[in-house]
């Protein structure tokens, strides 16, 4: 997302769009790192797959810019689902689509938390995955619970709690063997390594917390 003419008032949509743009830049910057994590226990393309997602979102930025928040997320998700492929395309795409579906037009933080939980549930269903399977779910599920628990206490604190829970999730999953995705085939070798999808999920949560955690 290269050129952005700032909206006269920073609407929730504009903030989301900007956050998405920064997220995409971070993902592109992390491509090699995520590929390396995937090379260790998967097929080495997780960063590459997410860079396809990031480029696609950049391409459709103008379309997204005209949408209300729920539709923006749904559309962003369906663009990813439609174009990315791999395992992470359908998973992240579903996360965004289902979150968007559950989101009101002008959500409160608590409504955000509820919608995020719906998105995470959709992702788990799509992947037939449960927590502890050593996937991105191990970061996203505890993060979404933390957001729900802290939604009453102010955005900055809630997002910080979400991020901390995600990080804890990554660490808790580290010693596990994988039970979903390609890493399920490497058996013992996955234990001790970080799951690439969990790492990219945490990167997303951290970016969002950084960008939106300061605003009130």
């Amino acid at each position: 997302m290269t050129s952005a003419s700032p909206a006269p008032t920073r609407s929730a949509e504009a903030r989301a769009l900007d956050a998405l743009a920064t997220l995409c830049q971070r993902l592109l910057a992390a491509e090699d790192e995520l590929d390396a994590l995937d090379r260790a226990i998967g097929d080495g393309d997780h960063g590459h797959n997410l860079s396809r997602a990031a480029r696609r979102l950049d391409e459709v930025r103008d379309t997204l810019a005209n949408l209300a928040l729920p539709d923006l997320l749904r559309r962003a998700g369906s663009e990813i689902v439609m174009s990315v492929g791999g395992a992470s395309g359908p998973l992240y795409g579903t996360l965004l689509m289902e979150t968007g579906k559950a989101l009101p037009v002008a959500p409160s933080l608590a409504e955000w938390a509820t919608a995020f939980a719906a998105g995470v549930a959709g992702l788990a269903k799509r992947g037939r995955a449960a927590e502890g399977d050593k996937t991105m779910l191990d970061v996203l599920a505890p993060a979404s619970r933390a957001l729900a628990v802290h939604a009453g206490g102010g955005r900055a604190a809630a997002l910080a709690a979400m991020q901390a829970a995600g990080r804890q999730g990554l660490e808790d999953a580290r010693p596990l063997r994988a039970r979903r995705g390609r890493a399920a085939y490497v058996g013992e070798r996955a234990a001790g390594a970080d799951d690439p999808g969990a790492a990219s999920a945490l990167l997303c949560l951290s970016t969002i917390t950084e960008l939106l955690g300061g605003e009130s």
Partner: protein
Amino acid sequence: MSKFLNDPEDAVAEALRGFARCHADLVQLSEQPRFVARRNRVPGKVAIVSGGGSGHDPLHAGFVGRGMLDAAVPGEVFSSPSVEQILAAAQSVADDAGLLCLIKNYSGDIMNFELAMELFDLPHAEVVIEDDIGAAGGGETVGRRGVAGTVVVEKIAGAAAERMAGLTECADLARSVAEATRTMGVALGGCRVPTADRPNLELAPGEMEIGIGIHGEPGRRRAPVAPADDIAEELVYALLSDLAPPPGEPLLLFVNGLGGTPPMELQILYRAAVRMIEGRGLAVARSLVAPLVTSLEMPGASITLTRMNDRFLQLWDDPVVTPGLRWGA
């Protein structure tokens, strides 16, 4: 491991253009979204679509044509195709007779096909192929991987569709062939994805990985390279133990090259496999020895066995006219 490439990011696109140009009599390439479709579609026939990551040539695009696939959906190398590709392919080749999706059992393939089918409004059925008994772990949670046995399923289901069998019949048949099919592979080295800078499997010279997956996934054991007869025996023993064919049942024996192993060595493995199977009083009724489900330039091979019956045999023998497999017509 140098390669003939321009921009590695363009490898799949350029190769498909070359492939489609070379086989323009049989197939047609859609570039955006990317899929390969059969040129002379038969109206009222169940359409069969398969797909998955690229790098396994001739699977799947090489099997588009008469008596096999109506479309193939190639992803990036070793990466599942996207929903829009699958959907476009399905819409381009299917009519009211319906669509059968043949899907190798990988998370990405399953989810992308599933999502595409949620958006597809003609009758459709999905069959997941999971023939690889090579992996040590993972089988309990994610099931077996789909590998070379896919060719057998695509061939037999394709022949049934060409005989104008209905959607349910084709799907049931594909499922029963998949259930009757098992594969196990062995690698003598790795391969390198065009966009990567190193091989995806590190084997010391003189080592082999028994049970290798077609993306370089680990198998069940790593050991010094054994004589060809011993390797064939280990694979065949594992396959027979799993399939447990009763004496007298005809078997299909398919020795598949993973890319870097020349025909001479595949033939040596095939000969050993035949001897072992026949030595146990079983019959090799049909044979196939070729690199059909490859892993780029990986040196290695896999052995597939299918428990055949009269119906499977007839459909196997039916004409097939595709870039990668051709007989009987």
